[in-house]
C-alpha cells in the first residue's frame, strides 16, 4: 500500500481516529454488557433474599426440615418439596445417564453409516426442542395411563420396599421423574457425544495399535478421556431437572404433604410449589415462597459448584 507520508513502513501507519474509537467503543460496550449480566444475577439474588427475610427470621433452618406447608396456620416448611426435587431429579439421572451415555457412544462410533447416523443425531437433539408443556400434556394423556399397570405391579410385588409402598395414584413422583429423564436425555447425549468426538483420534489409534478391541478402547480410553465433558453434561442436565417446572407441575400431583418415601405417591417440587402458589399468595406466604426459591437457588448453586470441582478434579490434560 503506497503511502504519501514519510512513514512509509507499515509499522508507522496510523489507524484513523474512527477505527480506533470503534475499537474502544466495542471493548467498553462488551464490558458493560458482561458486567450488567453479573449485576442482574446479584440483583435477583438480593431481591429474593430480602423478600425471603421475614420467613427466614420466623422459621430459620427449621424450614428445611419441616414438611408442614399450611397457608391457614401460617406454618411453612419445604421438606416435602426439597425431597420431591431431589428424588425426581435422581430418578431422572438414574434413567437418563446410562441411556444418554450409551446413545453418545453409539453415535460417536462408526457403527452406522453417516447417512443414517446424522438424522439420528439430529432427532436426539430435537428432543430438547419439545416445549416443556408438551411433555406435560404427553405425560398426562399417554405416559401416566401407560405406567399405571407398572406402578400397580411394583406396589403389589415390591411393596415392602419403602420406595414402592403406596398404590399408584395416577400422577406422582415416578411419572415426573420419568418425563424429566426424557427431557434431560438429549442434553446428556449431545454433550457426551461432543466430548467423545473431541477425544483426539491419535488416542484411539494408540489403543488399537496396542491390540485393544473396540470395547476396550471405548471403556478404557475414550470414556475416561471424555469424562470431564460427560460429567459437565450430566451436571447441566441435573440443574435443568431440578429447575424444570411446567411438565413436573402437570405430572407430580402437587401434594404438599409427605406421607411416605414412595415414588408412586403424589408429591411436589420446589418449582412446582412456586408455580402453583404464587398467584394467590400474600403476606408471609410470599416470603415463604421466596425462601423456597432461595433454597432451590442454593441447590442448583451447589450442583454447579460440584460440577466444577468434578470437572477440574478429573479433567484429563490432553
Amino acid at each position, binding site marked *: 500500500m503506497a503511502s504519501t507520508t514519510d512513514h512509509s513502513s507499515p509499522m508507522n501507519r496510523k489507524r484513523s481516529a474512527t477505527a480506533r474509537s470503534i475499537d474502544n467503543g466495542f471493548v467498553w460496550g462488551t464490558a458493560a454488557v458482561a458486567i450488567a449480566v453479573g449485576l442482574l444475577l446479584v440483583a435477583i439474588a438480593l431481591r429474593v433474599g430480602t423478600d425471603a427475610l421475614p420467613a427466614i427470621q420466623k422459621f430459620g433452618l427449621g424450614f428445611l426440615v419441616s414438611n408442614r406447608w399450611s397457608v391457614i396456620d401460617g406454618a411453612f416448611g419445604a421438606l416435602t418439596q426439597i425431597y420431591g426435587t431431589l428424588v425426581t431429579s435422581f430418578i431422572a439421572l438414574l434413567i437418563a445417564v446410562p441411556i444418554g451415555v450409551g446413545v453418545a457412544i453409539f453415535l460417536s462410533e462408526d457403527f452406522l453409516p453417516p447417512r443414517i447416523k446424522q438424522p439420528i443425531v439430529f432427532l436426539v437433539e430435537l428432543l430438547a426442542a419439545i416445549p416443556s408443556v408438551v411433555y406435560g400434556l404427553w405425560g398426562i394423556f399417554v405416559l401416566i395411563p401407560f405406567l399405571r399397570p407398572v406402578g400397580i405391579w411394583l406396589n403389589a410385588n415390591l411393596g415392602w420396599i419403602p420406595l414402592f409402598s403406596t398404590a399408584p395414584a395416577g400422577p406422582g413422583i415416578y411419572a415426573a421423574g420419568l418425563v424429566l429423564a426424557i427431557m434431560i436425555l438429549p442434553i446428556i447425549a449431545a454433550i457426551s457425544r461432543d466430548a467423545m468426538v473431541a477425544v483426539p483420534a*491419535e*488416542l484411539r*489409534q*494408540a489403543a488399537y*495399535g*496396542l491390540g485393544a478391541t473396540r470395547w476396550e478402547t471405548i471403556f478404557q480410553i475414550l470414556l*475416561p478421556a471424555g469424562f470431564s465433558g460427560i460429567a459437565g453434561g450430566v451436571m447441566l442436565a441435573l440443574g435443568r431437572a431440578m429447575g424444570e417446572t411446567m411438565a413436573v407441575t402437570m405430572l407430580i400431583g402437587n401434594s404438599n404433604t409427605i406421607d411416605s418415601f414412595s415414588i408412586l405417591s403424589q408429591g411436589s417440587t420446589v418449582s412446582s410449589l412456586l408455580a402453583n402458589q404464587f398467584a394467590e399468595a400474600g403476606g408471609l406466604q410470599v416470603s415463604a415462597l421466596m425462601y423456597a426459591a432461595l433454597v432451590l437457588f442454593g441447590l442448583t448453586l451447589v450442583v454447579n459448584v460440584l460440577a466444577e470441582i468434578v470437572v477440574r478434579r478429573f479433567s*484429563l490434560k490432553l
Partner: protein
Amino acid sequence: MTSRLQSARQTDSVFHTEDLNIYYGNFLAVRDLSIDIAKNSITAFIGPSGCGKSTVLRCFNRLNDLIKSFHIKGKIYYHDQDLYASEIDPVEVRRQVGMVFQKPNPFPKSIYDNIAFGPRLLGYKGDMDELVEQSLKQAALWDDVKDKLKAFGTDLSGGQQQRLCIARAVAVQPDVILMDEPCSALDPISTLKVEDLLQELKEKYTIMIVTHNMQQASRASDYTAFFNVEANSKGQRTGYVVEYDRTEVIFQSPKEQATQAYVSGRFG
C-alpha cells in the same frame, strides 16, 4: 535388483508382500509392492509426501482396517501366514506388531498406567512393576521418570512422550515395531536419542520406520525402500517402490535415476 536383494537377505524375513495393491474405494493408493522385511533389522521407507509410505506401514498391523473404504489386492505374509486371511483377527495382529505414531500420543493416564495398559489388556500375570521398569529402560526413559511414575504421561516433554510411546509399544513384547515418522515432532537431540534407541531395539525387535529425514534413514536403517508417486490420466496419485536395497546402496550407488535425485536432495 531381485538377485542382489536375495543375496542381501541372509536373515529370515518377517514380512513378505506379493504384488500388493492398496485401494481406498476405487482409488489405487499404492501399486505392485513386493518387498521382504528382514528380521532384527531396521527398514526405512523414504520418499516424497503422498507416496503412500504411511499407508503401506499401516497395512502391516492392519490399522488401515479402521478405514471403511480400505482394501488390498495381493498378499502380505507374516512369517508365512497370510495376514489378511479371513480367520486372522486384526486385534491379535496388532498385539504382535506394535506401532509408534508421528505425533506422540500418550494416554491421559499416569506414566505407569500408560505402560501397563497393553500388558493389562493381554492379562499379563507377572510382576507389573518390573515390566514397567524394563520397558522404560528399553526406551531409555527410566532415569528421567523413575521418581514420578504417577505423573501424567501427557506432562512429559515431546521427546520424553515419544520414548514413553516406544516403551508402551515395547511393553506388550511385540515381534515388530512400526514407526510412522517418530521423530518428526521432536527436536534434534531427542531425535538422536530415539535413533540410538533404535539400534538397541533391533537386537530384540524388527523395526520398520517411515521417515522424511534422509539423514535419519542413512544413519539408522539397514534397508531402505524409496517410494515415489506418479499421477495417472485422471490425476490420481499412486505410490510405488522405485528401489529397495541395503541402505548404503540406496544412498551411495542407487541404480535408479529418481533415487539418485531424491537422496542427493535434487527433488522431493
